[in-house]
């Protein structure tokens, strides 16, 4: 199985390592060369460039990717790249991080598989607050 990880920050780099450990072929894309340092020793492909750039996506092998993870630090960048991966390259599994809950809802409604850490945090914090009140 092959995955593209676009955006090599804390989330992207850790995820890339995890997929690598599980035996996936992983190609990482980031516009900053120093991002590679986050992964440590990385023997798989790293493509330097912006995920909005189709030539970068193609060099990373999006054409035969089974999954694409979009986790750059820009919500709008992620939303656009995810749509391009899904609609232009017809990748089966595209998961995208969108921090803003409002935009996360909008793009979920448009059919994207969205993970919104902000929304998850809000829900979890609320759950714990309510649980503590119930205990008290």
């Amino acid at each position, binding site marked *: 199985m092959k995955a593209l990880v676009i955006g090599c920050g804390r989330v992207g780099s850790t995820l890339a390592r995890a997929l690598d450990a599980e035996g996936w072929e992983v190609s990482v894309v980031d516009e900053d060369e120093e991002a590679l340092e986050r992964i440590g020793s990385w023997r798989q492909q790293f493509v330097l460039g912006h995920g*909005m*750039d*189709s030539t970068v996506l193609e060099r990373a092998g999006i054409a035969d990717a089974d999954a694409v993870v979009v986790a750059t630090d*820009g*919500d*709008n*960048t992620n*939303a*656009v790249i995810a*749509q*391009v991966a899904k*609609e*232009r390259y017809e990748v089966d599994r595209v998961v995208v991080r969108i921090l*803003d809950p*409002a*935009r996360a809802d*909008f793009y979920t409604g*448009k059919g994207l598989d969205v993970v919104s850490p902000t929304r998850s945090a809000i829900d979890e914090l609320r759950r714990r607050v309510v649980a503590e009140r119930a205990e008290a």
Partner: protein
Amino acid sequence: MFVLVAGGGKVGSNVARSLLANGHEVVLVEQDRHRHDVLERELGHGAVYGDATELFVLEAAGIKRPPDIVVALTGDDEDNIVICQLARERYGVAKAVARVNDPRNQPHFDLLGISPTVSAVEMVMALVEHEVPEHELVHLLALKKENLEIVEVEIGAGAVADGRRVEDLHLPEGARLISVMRNGAAEIAVGATKLERGDQVLAIIEPGREEHLRQLLCSTRRREKR
């Protein structure tokens, strides 16, 4: 009409000014605090501070009314795409226009149905290609011994030759048409051959006849503009 403009840089602020001068209602959204404050002095409540890809900012700018048109003119193509998608699909805005900053992103706009788009680079390129004569008349072959040249010209819209027969063109001495290619099929140009815009014409000319040929075969728009 009511227009929401996203992005208050040089493009956005001048679009807003022009719309206001034409009597339209305009709200301009700008995310840089300093830039917004400058614009607010000029536009008052017409300037809204914030990121136009945030729903609450769009709502503060009146997107729920909704505007007759949203114009996304920020310097970020992904922001312009998201603004147009939110405007049209979330808020039911009928029309959205987007600026393309990097022409390499044009396919993304097209893929996602963001249209119409405006790209300064593409507009400049279209003008350059229109203004530079070499682009209208291609030198295919120089027959050195004969002192003749074979050139290719496309019949332009509104050209003298558009809709005329070859014999009615009164071609100058030293210039004759060889063939006409239309819809992928070529035929020898004779006096009765009727020319149409878009035809690819081969001509044989003496050097120095290019301008005359161009005046007959190419679009007149370039000269009118001068």
